[in-house]
């Protein structure tokens, strides 16, 4: 229902606000389905970072969406047919929670029953994501890195006089600055908690990277761009992103050197379970570093541009 309103309103700002609400609702739905990790990511990325990024790009462009020139019959038909096809496919899919569904027959039992013994992780999602599906997660990390590369190529980070106007020209928000100063250490500590607690509860490298980046984005928003860039230099961010991917890949290479397959963490230590722990820890660290620097990089690149009047 909210999605319909999002499409209906032509004022882009209201669209952004409502899509923030929409992703909050979606995350609540995921919580209800007991998919905590997904809800966690949706909350951090969908509600937080996406809103901030869309707002900063909205600042660069015009506020109101242009009226579409073509008629809306053809797009409606395409969407309708696609939707009908999806619903038809969903009819064929097994019932929700059906134990005999193919998904539950193939690899899921093995993940559920043996991940405790083989990986030794209380949080199954982390075990599956980082260990069994290590290749996929590596691919995702590289995709994120590539996204950062594309943004850098297209926008670049503006230097010198191209800074966004300092906020002092508008007004000083003293209360905000004090509270933000108090809050940022809390946010960073919470980010670390999520990073290293991912083995046991919800969380992991991806979410921790987003939380860390959120902390710095908050600093930027409260104190202005110049100070934020003094704290963490944009020149270092691409290197950090590359470092994250290298950590991930390096773990894989080390396990090759130790005579096992790529990204087989059992090779990292004498005890296979301990090796798995170590591998997942390092890999999550790599993912976290990459995600953090990439998000901050994109934020800097978009928010640092000058508005075209």
């Amino acid at each position, binding site marked *: 229902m909210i999605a319909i309103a999002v499409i209906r309103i032509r004022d882009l700002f209201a669209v952004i*606000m409502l899509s923030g609400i929409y992703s909050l609702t979606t995350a*609540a739905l995921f919580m209800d389905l007991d998919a905590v990790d997904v809800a*966690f990511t949706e*909350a951090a990325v969908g509600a937080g970072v996406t809103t901030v990024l869309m707002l900063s790009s909205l600042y660069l462009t015009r506020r109101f969406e242009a009226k579409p020139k073509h008629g809306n019959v053809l797009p409606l038909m395409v969407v309708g047919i696609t939707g009908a096809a999806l619903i038809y496919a969903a009819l064929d899919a097994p019932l929700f929670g059906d134990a005999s569904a193919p998904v539950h027959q193939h690899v899921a039992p093995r993940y559920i029953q043996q991940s405790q013994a083989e990986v030794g992780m209380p949080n199954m999602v982390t075990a599956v994501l980082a260990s069994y599906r290590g290749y996929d997660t590596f691919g995702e990390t590289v995709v994120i890195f590539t996204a950062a590369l594309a943004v850098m190529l297209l926008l670049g980070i503006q230097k010198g006089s191209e800074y966004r106007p300092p906020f002092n020209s508008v007004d000083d928000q003293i209360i905000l600055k004090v509270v933000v100063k108090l809050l940022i250490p809390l946010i960073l500590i919470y980010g670390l908690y999520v990073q290293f607690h991912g083995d046991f*509860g919800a969380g992991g490298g991806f979410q921790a990277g987003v*939380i860390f980046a959120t902390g710095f*984005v*908050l600093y930027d928003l409260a104190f202005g761009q110049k100070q934020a860039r003094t704290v963490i230099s944009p020149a270092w961010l691409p290197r950090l992103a590359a470092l994250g991917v290298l950590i991930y890949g390096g773990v894989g290479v080390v396990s090759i050197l130790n005579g096992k397959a790529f990204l087989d963490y059992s090779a990292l230590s004498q005890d296979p379970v301990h090796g798995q722990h170590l591998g997942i820890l390092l890999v999550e660290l790599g993912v976290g570093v990459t995600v953090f620097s990439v998000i901050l990089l994109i934020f800097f690149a978009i928010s640092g541009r000058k508005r075209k009047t």
Partner: protein
Amino acid sequence: MIVAAILAVLVTMILALIRAFMGPTEYDRMLAANSFGTKTVLLIALGGYALSWHSFLDVALLYAMVNFVGTIAVMRFFELSAAAEQNKQADTQEDTSL
């Protein structure tokens, strides 16, 4: 009793949502979205306890942070837009006076 509290939070969420849809100005929408976010934190904390979800408090904590950051971002956006408008107006005034 916890059910009553959850119901109260839900009702408030719906009221805030109506305000977000109506919202005569952008500031009203922003306020409603912020209120909605706070209520979501409450809903997750209370509902998660009532339905004994798994590690719900992490998500609630994250929401509380993200909500704040989002609100601040929106607020800064308005300030900057207002400042840009003022600058534009000042420029045009100077042009006409010259």
